[in-house]
């Protein structure tokens, strides 16, 4: 019991330092966005090319796949679990869809739909494992990740699938009004859709309650296991859509498709304020995290940082964002 609980009512007395400092509060609450703007300005000063329309389009496209993965990843995090298999699921499911499409001569939409269906089924299976079988999500999804990565390699024999067909890759290549890509619209629609689900529906409310306190949620009559299974299934579905988009955009599926996304897909929601302990976070935060990471990646490439240093400097920038966020949590709980 500290003094703030002592006072009973939520009086302005705040023992965690002087939170009455309005500008500082505002800065810390919006640190991801401020850091994002600061980096955009910084990169722009180094190289005017950063501000060109072409580069903006590039950033939007680059952010789309990571964004879909970030949204998928934030769902298990919100229920205080994790799903490491999401990026591997993305690569595997799209490859299965494409191989089936090519070998059986199916139309593109069946190939894409099959991939998404498989990804959804894998998410559902993960959900079953961690609820009904009480497997620890960290290890269960780690093993699933290894299985799916291995399966992708086995299916492709290390070769890259490039015969995707024009219809299949349309969404990743189409542009309107002089080069504005349409693929990011999928991301925007998903943000809005998931935002509504989380903020307005009973299912969304259950996600936050289960992540905040699963035992209390159970006593409150919420079906905790069902909520987690649904959450994993939805995450799998989003991974499948991301897989289709990535394949369509790259016009290829490599034998290690998706692997490089894992750490960024976890980092984006966390940078955006999604708590790894569950129950906290929203889609706007994820968007901020995704844009921040994408701007760092693209920006470092544009200002011609020697490739040997890109990883290190990028990591340092993420570190700063997370450190500032930790400060915020410390001051405002």
């Amino acid at each position, binding site marked *: 019991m500290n*003094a703030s*609980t002592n006072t*009973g009512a*939520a009086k302005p007395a705040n023992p965690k330092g002087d939170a009455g400092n309005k500008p500082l509060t505002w800065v810390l609450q919006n640190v991801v966005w401020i850091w994002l703007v600061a980096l955009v300005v910084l990169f722009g000063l180094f190289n005017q090319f950063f501000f060109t329309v072409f580069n903006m389009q590039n950033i939007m496209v680059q952010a789309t796949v990571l964004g879909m993965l970030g949204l998928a990843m934030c769902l298990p995090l919100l229920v205080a679990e994790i799903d490491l298999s999401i990026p591997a699921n993305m690569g595997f499911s799209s490859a299965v869809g494409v191989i089936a499409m090519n070998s059986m001569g199916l139309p593109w939409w069946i190939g894409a739909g099959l991939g998404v269906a498989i990804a959804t089924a894998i998410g559902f299976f993960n959900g079953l494992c961690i609820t009904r079988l009480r497997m620890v999500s960290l290890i269960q999804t780690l093993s699933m990740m290894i299985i799916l990565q291995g399966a992708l390699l086995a299916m492709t024999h290390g070769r890259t699938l490039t015969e995707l067909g024009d219809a299949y890759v349309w969404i990743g290549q189409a542009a309107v009004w002089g080069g504005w890509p349409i693929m990011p619209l999928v991301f925007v629609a998903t943000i809005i859709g998931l935002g509504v689900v989380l903020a307005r529906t009973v299912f969304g*409310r259950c996600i936050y309650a289960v992540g905040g*306190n699963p035992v209390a*949620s159970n006593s409150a009559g919420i*079906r905790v296991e069902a909520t987690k299974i649904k959450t994993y299934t939805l995450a799998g579905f989003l991974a499948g859509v991301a897989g289709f988009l990535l394949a369509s955009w790259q016009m290829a599926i490599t034998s290690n498709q998706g692997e490089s996304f894992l750490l960024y897909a976890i980092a984006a929601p966390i940078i955006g304020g999604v708590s790894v302990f569950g129950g906290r976070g929203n889609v706007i935060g994820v968007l901020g995290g995704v844009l921040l990471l994408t701007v760092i990646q693209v920006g470092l490439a544009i200002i011609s940082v020697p490739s040997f240093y890109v990883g290190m400097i990028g990591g340092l920038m993420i570190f700063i964002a997370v450190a500032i966020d930790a400060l915020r949590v410390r001051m405002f709980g």
Partner: protein
Amino acid sequence: MSGEPSIAATLPDEVLRIEGVGKRYGNFDALKDVSFGIRRGSIHGLLGENGAGKSTLVGIISGQKTATSGHVRFNGEPIDAKDVRTMEEAGVFLVTQEPMIIDHMSAAENLMLGIWPAKRGFVRWRKLRADSAQMLAGTGIDPTQRAGSLDAVARRKLNILRAMFSGGKVIILDEPTAALTVDDRNQLFDFMRRLKAEGVTFIFISHYNDEILDICDSVSVLRDGALAGGSEDVGAMTSEQLSELVLGRGLKLFQRHQHDLGATPVAITLSNIRSAKVDLDRLDIHKGEILGFTGLPGAGAKELVRCLFGLIPTQGGSIDFHAGDGGEALPTSPGEAFKRGIAFLSDDRRRDGAVTQMAIGRNISLSSLDKVSRWGFVDRAAEAALSARYFAAMGIKAAGPEATVDSLSGGNQQKVCLGRVMATAPRLLILDEPTRGIDVGVKQDVLQIIDDLTAQGVCVIIVSTDTDELVRSADRVCVFGGGRLRRELRGTEINAEALRSIMGEA
């Protein structure tokens, strides 16, 4: 009764003196100019409502917090602004509500946690075992036992012993009796008296007047951060006098008026409920009745209500709401129980009370989401109306329903949980220790809210080991033992002595 002059004067053989101690947070005074002394080898009670400043004061005494003004003298020496380690080296230990015990270590290892006898970095196991066996002699705790398998009272004893073993001379016990049964509590009190005879001084924080009257030699009462009064002779005080000091007004203790069970129809019949620890043949609950369930841990009272709520699987049993359908099987999940009008509030608020990082209003509506939603979408207006209604009805002290639960005191958190279960409009409301760990003022509020609910015909089961609470609120008390219903007490049969003796026999 305000014994301030006598207590402000220096006592003979004082071990601890609080001298004008104040603590300020921003522009809020958590403590204001508090002064009193504590004699060596005494048990000093510290009373006050939640938020009165008890925890802040013991935090300052134990070195976890720094006073803004004033001094704490230990054996006459000022010991201000020291950290916990310095205070522990001096001999002042705080034993918190949550026993700090590492479950997978043995009792002996826990006893010497951090001060394991060692030689060049290697733990000297033989010495550790010998020393701890000596310490634990007469406590009934086996040194080799895994701490996780110890019961609540043994864990608390272990914590107190650890404090003593580390050279504790003044031991502060923050609500040590929470979650203990009467028997365990008496055992703990005997243990404290034994240590007191060896010269250990205790500061004892409790919400319960009878505990203070039972074990304390002297008492200080805090109200709104200031010393409201105290006494060097607790034996001469009554429970009412203590309550008056705590609340600062003539407290009217809740007393339910007589409810004639013979004149009200039976509303619910439980029959043939069987599970691992429950064996109930038949129990009728009358309309608008407050039915008390009591018994020692494992006696079946807590288990039975969890069967009714679908938290414990049963081998059979039925619940009949006398709606003409002859009764139905028990619910198999809490969600189903709520839908059928059975609401339950658990005794473990920390573990499964509220979702503390969510807003108060969202906690209140959490069990009623199906009532305030359409096609899976939450109807925000309906939800806000529901939350506002129960926020007001419970008298929750907070800025508003948008504030998060973790900003509330324990008593107000309990009101939020109570609001949540009541918002489901239950036919049968089951409350497990509804007033545990909340202060005496809020306790009266909660009992009054429950009383008002029964006027609308709702049946209430209160599971409690607080005999005073049962005496004041229950129309009938069922005493459980070995999973079975052993005795039923009604009306004037319900009194503290009878309950205690029957509980022991059952």
